[in-house]
């Protein structure tokens, strides 16, 4: 999964898609995940990183991450591959 080129993300978590004009806000956790996607990390690596840093059950994390990735895809912020 890759963040689409040209997607702009500010330090405050404001995401702007210059191709569609859409804008979104994400919290610090969402920013962190997008940063890791930008670094080319896999879904498994992102899951492991979050599990190592936060107290969260793996099952809940995987479900929440799945929802988040689905939303990023729906809004054309990321693409598979």
């Amino acid at each position: 999964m890759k963040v689409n080129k040209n997607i702009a993300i500010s330090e405050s978590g404001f995401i702007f898609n210059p191709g569609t004009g859409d804008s979104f806000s994400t919290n610090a956790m969402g920013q962190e995940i997008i940063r890791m996607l930008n670094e080319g990390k896999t879904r498994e690596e992102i899951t492991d990183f979050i599990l190592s840093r936060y107290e969260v059950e793996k099952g809940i994390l995987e479900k929440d991450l799945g929802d988040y990735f689905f939303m990023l895809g729906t809004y054309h912020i990321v693409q598979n591959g």
Partner: protein
Amino acid sequence: MKTLNIALTGLNNIDSPGPGVPVARALRAGGLKHVRIIGLAYDNLEPGLYMHDLIDRSYQIPYPSAGSEALFNRLKAIHDIEAIDVVIPNFDAELHNFMRISDRLKSELGIHSFLPDHDSFEMRQKSVLAEWGEKLGIKVPTTKPAFSWSEARQMASELGYPLMVKGKYYDAFTAHDADQAAAYFYKLSAKWGLPVLLQQIVKGTEVNVTALGDGTGGCIGAVPMRKMYITDKGKAWAGITLQDDRLLEIARTAINGSRWRGGCELEFIKTHDDQYYLIEMNPRFPAWVYLAVGSGQNHPEALVRLALGESVGPMTRYEVGKMFVRYSYDQIVDLKEYEHINTHGWL
């Protein structure tokens, strides 16, 4: 230094705004020196008449239905006072008259303009847009011109509901059944004349381009925008510039294919599978043209320079993610001003 006297129409900065006020604002913001703006108004309550920081003096002009000779004579009378250098018409419905007299304005009065020729103007008319788009490889929703309701009813049943019912020059409504279509047909034919256009609905996001063609196929500038907030009249109340190379390429194809001379607005629907459908090509700048200025391309200034015969190179850069947010504002006007434009025909 000589003052550049620029006359323009479209001072109706109302809920369905004309482009005159933003064009005037663009000319003030640009690199032109000593600009004097002369407003040309059809109605005495066009708000631009009373914007004295933008419009130096305004004059009434006859409605387009009075014909091109009446327009020429009125412009000649105004020119005798104001020594107009350039005139910029900003309404679809008046363009025929201005195009008809543009050569005489130049040769007899020395007034420059930068307008499309008759063939270019006609090829982007709503009734033949689909045919023209097909030649250029630009997708256009199926559009049928109807000269009577019985003809329209037959066409509508072929297109299927819902469909768009559009006026010859302005206005468009979505009709969900034959009763609605009939009501809109009669409303639009009474307001704008025939034909009334029936158009297939294409679902997606509306994206528009404001552009300037040099008349030889070149595109001097183009800025794409997505409407972020749309009024009940379908007008953009807020918008944002986009980075969309494919959309710009299609816009350039349209400018090139029409040898467009002057400002224009291209209206597209971008479908969910990223197809672009051209729904209209308006023969003048849009009311949101100042967004182009704000993002780095001053199309009205470039038009004036082209009208004066200057060489203007293409503008290819603009700032992506620049927004406009429109607002309304109550001007306080002294009755004496209203009285003056009513009784003297100028203000």
